[in-house]
């Protein structure tokens, strides 16, 4: 384990150094990313300005959910983005090279691409979250404060799991299967807002199939001190983020099946 951590740091160092070779264009990309995500929140503020509230939710409350989602997604993008570019590795055969090495393939794929550029979204997400928590007038105890990183961690795991799943599909098909991406990016878009505003089928999709509610809406409601809005027993809300971790572990099992399929078809 210690060896893997050291190795991961080494990979990360390499990735960062090679991105730093193009320092100016990195700075541009990161700034661009920050601006794009900044516009996104500005648009949300514009809507609140016009409509006052989103059903029972205030801008601050929505901003908490928005911040958790974006921070979690930025972390997943930074650390699991390798799975997103992975279909190209299968197509051009460079995945074979990973199989030639005495390391787990999932580890190598994850370590192959660490995108610093995502620091733009991360910064914006943290800023929105920090602003909302500081000025939203929530009464937060220590447990609530602990729930914030837990929800973020669960979310990062869940989004990473989705990246793994979309990567796995490329073992079976070379056609870009956008279905998973639809769920991933659609999930980010959807969980910026409280899940309770959506129609039932949509709520169920993101609670039971892809449990994004568990890492965002449910713990969010608990940490803002309004568990009654979540429509679930309170202990559930506190444990919900672990669903994200379980989702990632399950995705990695699917990954192993995919690798086995790959080595028996060599597609």
């Amino acid at each position: 384990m210690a060896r893997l951590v050291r190795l991961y740091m080494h990979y990360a160092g390499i990735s960062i150094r090679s991105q730093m070779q193009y320092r100016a264009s990195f700075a541009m990309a990161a700034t661009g990313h920050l601006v794009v995500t900044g516009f996104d929140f500005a648009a949300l503020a514009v809507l609140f300005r016009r409509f006052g509230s989103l059903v029972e939710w205030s801008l601050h409350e929505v901003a908490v959910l928005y911040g958790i989602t974006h921070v979690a997604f930025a972390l997943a993008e930074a650390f699991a983005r390798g799975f997103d570019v992975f279909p190209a590795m299968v197509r051009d055969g460079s995945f074979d090279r990973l199989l030639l090495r005495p390391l787990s393939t999932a580890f190598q794929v994850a370590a192959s691409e660490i995108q610093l550029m995502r620091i733009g979204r991360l910064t914006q997400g943290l800023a929105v979250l920090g602003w909302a928590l500081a000025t939203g007038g929530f009464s937060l105890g220590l447990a609530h404060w602990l729930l914030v990183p837990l929800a973020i961690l669960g979310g990062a795991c869940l989004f990473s799991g989705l990246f793994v799943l979309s990567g796995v599909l490329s073992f079976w098909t070379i056609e870009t299967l956008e279905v998973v991406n639809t769920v991933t990016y659609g999930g980010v878009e959807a969980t910026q807002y409280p899940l309770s505003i959506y129609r039932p089928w949509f709520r169920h999709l993101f609670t039971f199939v892809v449990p994004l509610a568990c890492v965002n809406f449910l713990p969010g409601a608990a940490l803002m001190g309004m568990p009654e809005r979540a429509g679930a027993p309170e202990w559930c809300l506190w444990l919900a983020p672990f669903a994200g971790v379980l989702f990632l572990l399950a995705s990695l099992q699917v990954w192993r099946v995919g690798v086995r399929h790959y080595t028996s078809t060599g597609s």
Partner: protein
Amino acid sequence: MRPYIAVLSANFRMMLQYRAAAFAGAVTQVFWGLIRVMVFEAFYRSSSLVHPMGLDEVVDYVWLGQAMLLLTTFGPDPHIREMIRSGNVAYELTRPTDLYGFWYVRCLAARIAPVILRAVPQLLIAGLFFGLRAPASPASGAAWIASTLAAMLLSAAFGAVISITLLWTISGEGASRFLPAVSWLLSGNIIPLPLFPEWAQGVLNVLPFRGLADTPFRIYMGHIGPGEALLPILHQVVWAAAFVLFGRWLLARAMRRVVVQGG
């Protein structure tokens, strides 16, 4: 004219090959559209005030936006980007045609083909199942088509400028990320422009970005009546021409640099 038509049709046929991608893209757009419609529904539930746009109109606006998405969300043309990265842009200079014209046509083809491929099925699906209404009147429909064509011309001119900025490696990288984001917000693709605060309306009306989305959409639903449509369409065409001139000037400058530095 012949070589331009050849480029246009080659690009068109190439895109037609990606039918599966177009299908998947349409599914994605519909899914996103549903999310956005539900969010707007919730916002409209929260307030009983009268807004510059009714929920019905916003729903139309969202579906048109999803269908025409490629007119507003675009990075640089991938082919031109590749050519610049690999230095093959020098080859383009050896061709006996006007380079800007070539690139413009390429950008135009990259908009027409996918818009037709994706927009038609999406509009049908949205119309049949998800509350998109027909154009306000046949005249509105006709004006909408004219305005959509103008939006394509404008979008291609804008895309060509973004592609050309890549010839300046560093600042191009920034511009090619920043400009699409600006156009994404200011064209009305995130929020319908009429829902922006009053004080912003004047600026939004003058800026070119509304011509990419807001103008044709509002013409479609009769928010801008067919009688008043001429001026907004002229606004689109004038801006398209301005971007073409700007793109030409930019490319001429860039090429002088390339030639001087030896590519």
